[in-house]
């Protein structure tokens, strides 16, 4: 009886595993098709029937993309903007989170609710006034026009994420440091920051990806082709009538490489970041 039960539950488990694998195939298929197409020559015309592995794989699309005007520049623009944004988001949200986690100050509650409330508003609804502000500060076609806006956007969310983490840190070290005459800045730099690398890594990874992938603000304020970022450069490979999909997906893959690398290296932090958000809000 028991062994029959066990056999039945093994069968059930195998079926469930089968369903899970089928789902994984569906999740992966578009990606695999993209990779295959990137190695196809002349992908204006699609193969019939569709092929995942090209008959004669070629890296021409990659060399064409890299050799095309402004592509390498766009890659470097994106990299610079993303690195700078990562630094600013991480540093500034950590400082704000420290203020929220360790001090009582006037206006704390009000500020807290303003930031929380504004997190619900679709970020894109600010694009009109942000554009006018950027223009009056002379920021269009300047790298700072991207970095500053990319930093301000996710600041509130990351402040809350880090605040939750800082509040959970034991206070004994800080208290004895204070008695030894350390300033709050020293405590922040020497105690809080080193103890918080997992949370700070989460913030850094997410803010890097956010800046790396951002499209519409970059499209709107960077009109000079030499100042384009990578997503805008990729979109510009689309033709008015015909699109060379091989070229689109080869350049997409180049853009996706840093993302996937980060994802694999920091998978743990992705999960931590998501679930700590789930608990702390």
């Amino acid at each position, binding site marked *: 009886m028991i062994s029959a039960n066990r056999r039945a539950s093994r069968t059930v488990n195998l079926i469930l595993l089968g369903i899970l694998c089928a789902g994984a195939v569906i999740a992966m298929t578009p990606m695999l098709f993209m990779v295959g197409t990137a190695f196809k020559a002349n992908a204006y015309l*699609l193969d019939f029937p569709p092929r995942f592995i090209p008959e004669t794989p070629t890296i021409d699309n990659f060399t064409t993309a890299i050799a095309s005007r402004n592509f390498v520049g766009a890659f470097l623009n994106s990299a610079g903007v993303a690195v700078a944004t990562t630094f600013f988001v991480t540093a500034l949200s950590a400082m704000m989170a420290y203020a929220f986690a360790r001090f009582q100050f006037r206006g704390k509650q009000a500020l807290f609710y303003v930031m929380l409330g*504004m997190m619900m508003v679709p970020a894109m609804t*600010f694009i009109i006034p942000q554009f006018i502000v950027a223009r009056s500060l002379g920021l269009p076609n300047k790298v700072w026009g991207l970095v500053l806006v990319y930093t301000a956007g996710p600041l509130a969310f990351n402040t809350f994420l880090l605040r939750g983490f800082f509040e959970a840190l034991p206070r004994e070290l800080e208290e004895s440091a204070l008695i030894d005459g350390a300033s709050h800045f020293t405590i922040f730099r020497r105690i809080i920051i080193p103890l918080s690398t997992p949370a700070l890594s989460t913030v850094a990874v997410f803010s890097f990806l956010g800046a790396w992938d951002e499209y519409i603000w970059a499209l709107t304020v960077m009109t000079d082709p030499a100042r384009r970022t990578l997503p805008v450069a*990729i979109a510009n490979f689309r033709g008015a009538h015909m699109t060379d999909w091989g070229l689109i997906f080869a350049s*997409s893959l180049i853009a996706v490489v840093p*993302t996937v690398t980060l994802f694999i290296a920091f998978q743990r932090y*992705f999960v931590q970041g998501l679930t700590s958000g*789930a608990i702390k809000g």
Partner: protein
Amino acid sequence: MRSGPQHRWYVPYLFLLPGLALYVLWMVYPLVYELYISFFEWNIMPGQASTFIGLQNYQTILNDSNFWLALRNTVQYTAITVIGQMALGLAVALLVHRVTVAQRVFRAIYYLPVVTSWVVVSFLFQFLFSSDRAGLINYLLVNLLHVTAEPVNWLSSGNTAWIAIYALGIWKGVGWSMVIFLAALQGIPVELYEVAAIDGAGEWGQFRHITLALIRPTTLFVLVMLIIGGFNVFLSVFLITGGGPLHRTEVVLSYMYDRAFNRLDFGYGASLSYILAAIVIGINFVQMRLLRGPEVQY
């Protein structure tokens, strides 16, 4: 440590200052400024005056059939993709949790679309839903499943274009809710199931009374976040259909962007933004009132 005497009053403000300055300049001020713009027939050309027209933009919007269509589309997109992502995300999480083999691998595979940029996956879906008979979806429907005889011209009509956009939204989002549901499932103590089994509860009873009951706060969190995300829908529409054909796939944000940056009607765009923001805040407010369980803390 908690309170004042050890530090001067301005110390916390020094920590806040750099971040807060950026936040006020690029988020708080725009929020207020946008309201101001929305009362004008705004002239974006430098040196030209804008005309104050009071609430006229809002009045025009209320009679603008394109706006109502865009709003309906946005709500529909939100409803369909939220349900799809939650149901599939929970199903996958339950499977991964139950099967227990290669959990990290499955999690990574399902999560990969989440971290891939919207620009890339939007082009990818445009390509999959190509009108050509060699497009992957058409090939699947015509030659493999024999659902239709002729290839579908997906992006040339609103209804079929929406299928592509919905599919993208769900496909890209399942991994996110899956990861969060999975973490919640892993947090449920195994002993609860053992006790319930001894008490004679079947699998379905255990699922309803233990699993679903204990992940309730997570479910609410996922629901709230996905609804906010749904109202943010923009890039997939902008890149796949551009709101066309004939505004059939327009969502509020794509319509706003079009009015502001293509037709340079900034006042109208600002009013559209304000209406959308008000709707989203309203929905969130109602949600928090209705759904806030004792466990959810903010």
